[in-house]
């Protein structure tokens, strides 16, 4: 995990947030509007955001190694994602929710976290999981149907995937409240102060839970960053069904300032998330980030997007590919060359093989394991049914 803390001028993040509060409201939601923070154009040109030089300063602090890491993470997780899709097609996974197109939003935001920060994902945050150090096979296990997640959230401060839309945003706020109660906010100690990041989609912004989480976060001044990946779609529903204003403005009315960022620009996502997390850790309260991106694939492998969207839209977004743009920048700036990119590709293919083999050799759980872990303490009904199940199963083994 990267940990390149950049000393922010005090309150700069908050100043940025306040400035964003007064940003003009665009006429339409359209292409995200000119006010989206962008530091890397789709062509891979490094640009500054007028009015917010602190974002560029954050990027200027990064080493070439860091920048190559941003690239490597994205390529590797995209490769894992492609392998998972293939495994689903071959019947090895029940379903898979692809992150294709959202690599920059996920890798950029996750790299802005410190070890002690905590992330609450949806079901699509494979890139965040990767950066936090969660073994991709854990993710595949859930989609294969051998468990409902199963990883230890406290190992990487990465919570279990949440499938019920929006529910995790409240958990994130509650966790952040716990951080406050622990006096782990605003002490100025870099290893002590912590914040929480809550991931959710554009569709989720309609849910009551998500809106309540904005209210709670603001009311409690909780150290939480709401990170909304606006990938333009909630299954078949375009984002316009959920909102009539840009999503980054949605939490403002509750008291959470918002910033919109080009979600396919990993540098901008990193800088903006870093500023928001710094602000939260330092006690300045919650913020919302909208990462404007696109779901390049189907909603899941069960979905058929030809029913509701035209491929021309997808083609437009291909030109904004997050990996291609970083690659162009790394190349033109001389920070990486062909041999580096080739090496990453080789590494990605090797990782895919590991993931595939790991998936194929993943055993089905013992049926009786369903009686485990329902409660902390023994429960008589569970134990009675466990015994009945064992006896019933044994009756077949007895040669019926």
């Amino acid at each position: 995990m990267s940990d390149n803390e950049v000393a922010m001028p005090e309150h700069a993040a908050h100043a940025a947030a306040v400035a964003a509060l007064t940003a003009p409201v665009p006429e339409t939601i359209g292409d995200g509007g000119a006010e989206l923070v962008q530091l890397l154009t789709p062509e891979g040109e490094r640009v500054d955001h007028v009015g917010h030089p602190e974002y560029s300063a954050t990027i200027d602090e990064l080493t070439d190694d860091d920048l190559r890491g941003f690239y490597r993470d994205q390529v590797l997780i995209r490769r894992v994602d492609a392998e998972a899709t293939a495994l689903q097609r071959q019947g090895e996974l029940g379903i898979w929710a692809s992150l294709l197109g959202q690599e920059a939003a996920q890798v950029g935001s996750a790299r802005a976290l410190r070890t002690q920060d905590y992330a609450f994902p949806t079901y699509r945050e494979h890139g965040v999981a990767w950066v936090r150090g969660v073994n991709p096979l854990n993710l595949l296990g859930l989609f294969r149907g051998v468990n409902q997640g199963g990883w230890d959230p406290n190992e990487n401060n990465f919570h279990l995937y949440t499938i019920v839309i929006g529910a995790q945003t409240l958990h994130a706020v509650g966790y952040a409240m716990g951080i406050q109660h622990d006096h782990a906010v605003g002490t100025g100690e870099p290893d002590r102060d912590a914040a929480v990041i809550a991931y959710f989609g554009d569709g989720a912004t309609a849910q009551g839970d998500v809106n309540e989480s904005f209210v709670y976060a603001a009311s409690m001044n909780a150290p939480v960053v709401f990170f909304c990946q606006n990938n333009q779609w909630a299954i078949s529903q375009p984002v316009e069904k959920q909102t009539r204003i840009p999503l980054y403005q949605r939490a403002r009315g509750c008291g959470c300032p918002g910033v919109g960022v080009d979600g396919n620009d990993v540098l901008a996502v990193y800088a903006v998330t870093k500023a928001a997390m710094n602000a939260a850790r330092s006690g300045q309260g919650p913020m919302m980030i909208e990462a404007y991106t696109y779901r390049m694939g189907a909603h899941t492998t069960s979905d058929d997007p030809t029913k509701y969207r035209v491929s021309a839209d997808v083609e437009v977004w291909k030109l904004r590919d997050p990996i291609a743009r970083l690659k162009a920048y790394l190349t033109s700036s001389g920070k990486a060359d062909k041999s580096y990119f080739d090496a990453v590709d080789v590494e990605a293919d090797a990782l895919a093989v590991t993931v595939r083999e790991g998936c194929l050799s993943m055993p089905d759980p013992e049926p009786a394991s369903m009686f485990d872990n329902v409660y902390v303490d023994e429960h008589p009904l569970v134990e009675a049914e466990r015994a009945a199940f064992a006896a019933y199963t044994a009756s077949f083994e007895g040669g019926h």
Partner: protein
Amino acid sequence: MSKIGIGKAINAGMRRAMERDPKVVIMGEDIGKLGGVFRVTENLQKDFGEDRVIDTPLAESGIVGTAIGMALRGYRPIVEIQFDGFVYPAFSQITCQVAKMRARSLGKIKLPMVIRIPVGGGIGAVEHHSESNEAYFAHTAGLRVVACSNPEDAYWMIQQAIESDDPIVFYEPKRRYHEKGEVDLTATTAPRSLFEATIARAGSDVTVAAYGPMVKVCLDAATVAAEEGRSIEVIDLRSLSPLDLDVLATSVEKTGRLVVTHEAPTFLGMGAEIAAAISQRCFYHLESPVIRVGGYNLPYPPSRIEEDFLPDLDRVLDGVDRALAY
């Protein structure tokens, strides 16, 4: 006669209801262009327009809450909940609002709405997509709860539910959406009341009660049992609230034995209510206690072992054996 699946039959039933009554509207997530994730509303938006087949924002409490408002204004909303596990954000609206409004108004208002829920497991899904939550709603006074098990019933029951002036929770057996059966799409009258149980297969030794996705399992079990010389009568309950105890009691008085099956956990499930009611009503006819065969009292397990959780043909026959052992 047309040979269609349950999903298509519900689609055809809703189509007819919408043709008949301009007040019928459908509300839900992804029901328009996509036709719903199970395609049950396929083409309805195309044919009836976006103001009658309403794609809602992604919020179930919102769907049900606003459907209540539509009903108060004189509409007959059909609400589609995408999966059983996603009805819970709307739980308060359904149990505190939908269920009680008529009583609170001393009968002055009615809420003719249908809440459609694809229910049950067996489709290899991730969590929250395989729940059987009928007991929560059957437990709630003010709601009627029905569960169809075959295309012909699906076709008629959805129309009857839409015509009902009471709110109805309508369960659709998702793993059977594509199982086909004969439906007369030209017939003009429903074969029976919405709240009547039916004898799905006649028999004499043991009564097996089922609803929704379990009916087929029980019919298959009866076929196997017949080969072994045991005669099972399968009752398709169809309605869970109200319960048609007459049909069930008549059967039990004949066979003397009852096995109740459902996918939902048995603890405080429909089987518990049925066992209590039938024990009381048929006490002197019973040769054995009422046996329940259902899911275990656990969170629905990961899909790779869901077959061990769901009551299957063998578990039904095991229940039958246990009933006959008395």
